[in-house]
């Protein structure tokens, strides 16, 4: 190893402390902003503007009793939150906060590990997060958490496909799975001189699909229906209490931060930005600043969504994922590949731009003619025999008259 041991440890610690701090600030900011949107004051007692509220809430969790209900499948019940937290930690490991930093005579990048399969790594960790949700719901051995877990995981896997395909267009455009290559590819634009080469511009449909997908993936409003706290008690983590519940909360909020960081990295150039010709000694701060600003913008977007939009209905959510986002993402992979390959055939950029624009308009036209109501599944209803109430997810209670009371008693 050509670097002293403290360098990787320092790198790792910096990235983690950064993301944990952002998560803490997110929880506070969410409560303040949503309160302001609802004409409330929000937390304002602990620290300036209530900024220490998150810390106090976290400390409060330590003093809460954590009983394990009698009916749960215990090893799985305890492991589920751990899986969620570790998946959250591992997915931020490949995201760079900035470019190379020189400190105490050592130069290193501000990323835990720049894996050569970085993009796949992010998607894989998203999949592992689904395990945490599903195992938590299943191991609770209680009807509502089970249904909440299944709904959440069905939602997450459906949007994961759309997201994965949106990322595939990025990979086609960048020609690499390594995150640092993708960021380097966005430094300057190849299409328009002097503009930032953010992939959000040429891959706009994929960008849209990814942004919608990440809201659903993080289980945030308006797609938080599996754990709608105003209507249900809380989805897959209903039976959890105390610190294990707190771990689910931590994983969920970290997911918001991670998703914001990923979309900034893949589509908005990550730490790229103007350096204003500053000397190198100071210039390394600027990429971190740009990255943070873009990421905070997306976090703010998450919070605004929560304050502004009503909750989606489950059937519409699934229809949106399967009937709109997946086809768009699939088609855009092909359009991107065509765009990249026609360059190899020696066709001028303007012709390629016109062709890509035409493809984009075609997708848009298809969407408009298909109609939002139809795509949302509304017009599919009357075709079938009218059902007065939606079929219940649960089996009727009469079928299971015997309840395992012996198991419940201590």
């Amino acid at each position, binding site marked *: 190893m050509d670097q002293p041991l403290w360098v990787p440890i320092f790198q790792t610690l910096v990235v983690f402390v950064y993301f944990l701090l952002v998560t803490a600030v997110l929880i506070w900011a969410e409560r303040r902003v949503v309160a302001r949107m609802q004409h409330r004051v929000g937390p304002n007692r602990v620290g300036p503007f209530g900024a220490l509220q998150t810390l106090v809430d976290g400390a409060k969790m330590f003093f809460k009793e954590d009983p394990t209900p009698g009916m749960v499948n215990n090893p799985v019940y305890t492991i589920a939150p751990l899986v969620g937290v570790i998946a959250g930690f591992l997915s931020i490991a490949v995201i760079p906060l900035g470019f190379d930093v020189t400190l105490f005579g050592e130069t290193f990048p501000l990323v835990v590990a720049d894996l050569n399969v970085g993009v796949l790594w992010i998607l894989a960790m998203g999949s592992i997060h689904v395990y945490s949700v599903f195992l938590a719901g299943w191991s609770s051995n209680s009807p509502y958490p089970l249904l909440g877990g299944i709904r959440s995981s069905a939602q997450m896997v459906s949007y994961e496909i759309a997201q994965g395909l949106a990322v595939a267009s990025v990979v086609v455009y*960048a020609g690499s799975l390594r995150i640092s290559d993708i960021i380097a590819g966005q430094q300057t634009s190849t299409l328009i001189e002097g503009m930032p080469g953010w992939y959000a511009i040429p891959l706009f449909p994929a960008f849209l699909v990814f942004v919608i997908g990440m809201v659903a993936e993080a289980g945030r409003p308006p797609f938080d229906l599996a754990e709608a706290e105003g209507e249900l008690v809380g989805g897959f983590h209903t*039976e959890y209490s105390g610190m294990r519940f707190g771990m689910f909360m931590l994983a969920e909020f970290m997911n918001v931060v991670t998703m914001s960081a990923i979309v900034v990295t893949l589509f908005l150039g990550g730490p790229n930005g103007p350096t204003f010709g500053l000397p190198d000694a100071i210039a390394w701060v600027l990429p971190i600043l740009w990255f943070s600003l873009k990421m905070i913008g997306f976090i703010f977007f998450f919070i605004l969504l929560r304050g502004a939009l009503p909750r989606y209905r489950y*059937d519409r959510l699934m229809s949106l994922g*399967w009937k709109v986002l997946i086809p768009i993402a699939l088609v855009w992979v092909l359009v991107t590949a065509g765009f990249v390959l026609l360059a190899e055939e020696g066709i001028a950029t303007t012709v390629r731009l016109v062709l890509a624009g035409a493809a984009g308009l075609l997708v848009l036209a298809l969407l408009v003619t298909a109609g939002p109501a139809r795509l949302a599944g509304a017009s599919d209803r009357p075709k079938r025999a009218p059902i007065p109430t939606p079929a219940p997810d649960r089996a009727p209670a009469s079928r299971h008259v015997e309840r395992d009371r012996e198991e419940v008693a*201590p």
Partner: protein
Amino acid sequence: MSFYQQYGIVAIVAVFGALLYAVIMLVNRIMRPTIPSPLKLSVYECGVESEGVGWSQMNIRYYVFAFLFVIFDVEAVFIFPWAVIVGDLDATTRISPVFALVAMFLFIGTLLEGLAYAWKKGVLTWE
């Protein structure tokens, strides 16, 4: 950095996460009160007396969606390697760009047809 160094760091991060979780749970165990009661061992669900068994029946549709997910996820496995190399193809490579493009068009077209079939059969409609 070498392959093993990178994944070694990732493994350390995983261990670090597990340790953090263990420490938090340990501190919690020391500080929290423990007042057992038979009620705390029962199903909470929604606060009212729970009905039915814990692992109750669920809508068959989730199974269909799980199936569709597997199909499309396997497809993604095929798309990613193609996506990485497709930009490097030109007239000098053994496979021409047009061939790669047409092949993927056929592949994705078949899948889209499958999706359209599921759509038409009403599998994607929730009721």
